[in-house]
């Protein structure tokens, strides 16, 4: 932690970091042009891009937001949002337990999109999980909506 840093040193450091950020950005964008539709490659490229962008974020926080000059607790506060990864991990681990219709809602009126008829799917999922109201839902629909 060098508290005493002369003006030219600072500018030099800032420009160096800027060059690093630029180079990493170019690499990231370049990586998207590498063909990666097949599976092992896809994961590798994706992880690589994510890792690179996290390093960029770190560079910005550490040098431009001056965390290199801050003391312990300021850094801890700054890093605290990383805890959201715990939440993310929980949700990801739980993903297979959630029915798909939790994600696929009703299409807007007049809009169709190719792969799913979510409405049908919704009913089917409800039945599949032995939802006691699934039949009621059918009945409601036939009565109320038509």
């Amino acid at each position, binding site marked *: 932690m060098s*508290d*005493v840093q002369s*003006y030219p040193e*600072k*500018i030099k450091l*800032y*420009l160096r*970091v*800027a060059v690093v*950020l*630029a180079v990493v*950005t170019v690499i*990231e*964008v370049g*990586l*998207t042009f590498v063909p990666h539709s097949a599976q092992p490659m896809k994961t590798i*490229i*994706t992880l690589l*891009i*994510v890792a*690179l*962008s*996290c390093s*960029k*974020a770190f560079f*910005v*926080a550490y*040098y*431009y*937001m*001056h965390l290199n*000059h*801050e*003391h*312990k*607790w*300021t850094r801890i*506060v*700054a890093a*605290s*949002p990383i805890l*959201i990864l715990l*939440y*993310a991990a929980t*949700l*990801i681990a739980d*993903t297979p337990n*959630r029915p*798909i219709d939790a*994600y*696929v*809602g009703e*299409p*807007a009126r007049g*809009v169709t*999109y*190719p*792969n*799913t008829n979510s409405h049908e799917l919704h009913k089917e999922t409800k039945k599949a999980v032995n939802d006691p109201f699934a039949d009621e839902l059918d009945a409601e629909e036939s009565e109320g909506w038509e």
Partner: protein
Amino acid sequence: MFCVTALEREPNGTKNKGKVSRRQENVGDEDEEIDAANPARSLVFHRSVVEMIIEVGGQECGRNPKSGQHDFLMEFPFVLFDRPPAPNQKDAGGPVQYRVKRGEEKTGRGKTFHVGEELDQGPGAFKKVPELLKIVRLGSNLTPMGSHTTTDHHHDYAGPERPRKEDIFGPASHGKIGMWLYLATDAMTFAGFLLGYALLRARIESWPKPSDILGISLATIMTSILIVSSVTLVVAQAKGEQKDRKGLIKYLIFTVIGGLLFLGLQAYEYNHLMHAFGMSLSNFTGGPPQFASTFFVVTGFHGLHVLVGAIYLMIILGRAIAGKYDGGNVNEVEIAGLFWHFVDLVWILVFTFMYLI
């Protein structure tokens, strides 16, 4: 010779307990150097000291150039250091002894004070220091030792009531700590959005490849603009620290322009996407509507931050033009900078998650 003014609080158990009074002492003779090894030259305070001001040649000295606060100054030729409480002292809080000495390096309150070898050399040199050193040390009792007391007035003083917490945040100003706390919560909000996006995308198989819909090249330009604006802002801050008002203003203007340019490009991008793919918060002709909703929510929330940041920086710019930062105290610029860099940092991640992968 230097003069120390201390605001002292009467201890408990005395008649005027809690009352703060001012005491002024001259230490050393006109041309005499201060020798800390000689206790007779050290200052002695019997009561709890609220605040201490050191004056040299009639001028107060030492303002912390970094935080702009009156605090311990790191490059001051004097050393002020604490001594551990003597075992026979029973005063609450423990007696703390301050001695003033030159040419040494000691730690106190977790900080190291670097002291110039010669009094008249270096930026913080003793005889040249025009700035002000106000040593704030709350709630400590100072032990008795011999001293030169030439004047001794007592005034009423409505000083700060509560002792200051120890500096677990180091040199960070209160405003800065506040901004960091806010940014932490804001980062959580963004993280929540990105997480929602990730979970939706993971489960919807027809999710299109973002690069087929969104323009990567435009987004790369937008990323570059934000990164460059971050660079110009740190340069602006460095210029401000150099008391270079013109440089500060110039680079702040560059930064604001960068922010506005980003917003313009984003408006252009939105417009294009709305027309080309019928994208709105709920509609999308190229695939599941969640693609459009998540895109607009995340980038829109970010764009709002850019807008707020640009306005924030314009206010800072106005203050810079008014000469508010001429003294080299750019704490406000730095705090605004934290917000701006955060916006840049978030965009780096948004760019990755929503455009690249």
